[in-house]
């Protein structure tokens, strides 16, 4: 197994006028290829900071981050540009990195066709449904051929119904493209249904409380929806629930 992203004793503090805030404290984990890690923790604990560090938007205060591969980032909202149609939105990353060549354009078109957006290429974001927009956002991220996807509560802006649908959708796309991912969420069942491992974080300053391996007896037929019906699901849920709650009563 190849390791794509390694956090080694990483800590992060913020300085504000009111003083120093320790957000992350000695975080260590490794993301391997073809693996999805879910990060779960109490809200406001600093989950998103892990992603900001991984994508080099911020620098760690101490510790070491090793990266082997390109990073792609997906946000809570789709952040599609209203004034660009679907195709132009997907091309955005290539324009930024100035790699808008024939080969990459062909790749974009193959993604568009593969994931059923060919009829919508000329549509503008406000003409698409929420689920469709998330799919466009994912393909915009994939267009840059990242090895690791960072997903920051990517579905929390959607209603529950759409969310289950999009989760299945995104899971399938990530798996079929053979990508690794770190998904930050506060939804326990969402974490269990997509992840190979779940990292449970404590309150601020965030420490790793537990790393849980998630295994289902589903072999290759695993989808987020299928896991929700699996017998192991409830056990994992209870375990994580207890871990999280232990902190709120502290």
């Amino acid at each position, binding site marked *: 197994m190849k390791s794509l992203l390694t956090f080694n004793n990483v800590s992060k503090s913020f300085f504000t006028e009111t003083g120093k805030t320790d957000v992350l404290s000695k975080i260590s984990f490794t993301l391997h290829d073809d693996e999805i890690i879910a990060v779960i923790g109490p809200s406001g604990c600093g989950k998103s900071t892990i992603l900001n560090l991984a*994508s080099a*938007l911020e620098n760690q205060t101490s510790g070491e981050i090793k990266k082997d591969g390109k*990073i*792609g*980032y997906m*946000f*809570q*909202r789709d*952040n599609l*540009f*209203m*004034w660009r*149609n679907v195709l132009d939105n997907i091309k*955005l*990353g290539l*324009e*930024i*990195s100035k790699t808008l060549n024939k080969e990459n354009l062909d790749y974009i078109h193959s993604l568009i066709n593969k994931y059923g957006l060919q009829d919508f290429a*000329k*549509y*503008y974001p*406000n*003409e698409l449904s929420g689920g469709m927009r998330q799919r466009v956002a994912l393909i915009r991220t994939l267009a*840059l051929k990242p090895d690791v996807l960072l997903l920051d509560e990517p579905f929390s802006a959607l209603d529950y119904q759409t969310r289950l649908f999009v989760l299945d959708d995104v899971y399938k796309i990530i798996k079929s493209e053979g990508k690794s991912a770190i998904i930050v969420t506060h939804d326990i069942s969402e974490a269990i249904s997509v992840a190979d491992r779940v990292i449970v974080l404590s309150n601020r300053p965030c420490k790793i409380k537990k790393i849980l391996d998630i295994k289902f007896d589903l072999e290759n037929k695993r989808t987020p929806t299928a896991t929700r019906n699996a017998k192991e699901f409830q056990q994992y849920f209870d375990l994580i629930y207890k871990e999280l709650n232990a902190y709120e009563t502290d």
Partner: protein
Amino acid sequence: MKQIESIEQFKKIKKRRKVLILLSQIGLTILFLVAWELLANLNIINVFLVSKPSDIFKLFIKYIQSGELFGHIKISVYETLLGLIIGTFLGLIIGVLLWWNETIAKILDPFLVVLNALPKTALAPILIIWAGTGIKGIVLVAVSLSIVVTIMSSYNYFVSVDKEQIKMLKTMGASKFQILTKLILPSNIPNIINIIKINIGMSWVGVIVGEFLVSREGIGYLVVYGGQVFKLDLVMMGVFILGILALIMYLVLNAIEKYYRYTKYSKKSHKS
């Protein structure tokens, strides 16, 4: 109320309402002019003070026949457009600069607030002395009126662009210049059009004030000259022409805005 049963009917009702609004607007204008004319002819209002539509129209024809009017219109429109373009353009550039460098924005903030609160027309005599009494001085007055508003509102629009969208571009490795050209400017085009709309009015005020003070031609000159010799027909004609010119500029800009909205946010307009 009647139930709407088909899309044709819905469109018909909408169209009928549009026609009704337009007819009412025209009707109101005519009613106002007719009442004015009647009251003037019946000596209920003093023609010497408020003039009357038929006299204004006669004067209008006279000025057109002599060709004098076009010269005045031309010079005023020219000055206004020049003031509008320079004021908007410079204002936007400075707005971008402030967005680019937060420290400069912080430093200039109190000065801009004071400049904005100051009635710029009070500066007009000084500006004209500095720039000269010709077109230059008048355009400078027009620019002084539009530029401060443009800087302040464009800067506010630029900094209120969605932070998450900026973050997204950063994760793609975008430079600050790319963030400007790919996000800040394109997302603010509707706002920039709004700024231009406001600046049309500002430039006209600047030009008229400038012409009041120094010029020998232009609509503002006609108005101030008419006032000095107590020819209220002339004053009223100048005001009417100003209204019509401002309306035309506004309509042109509205058409541009509409075109932009249709082509930019919807596939339906693209015949693909």
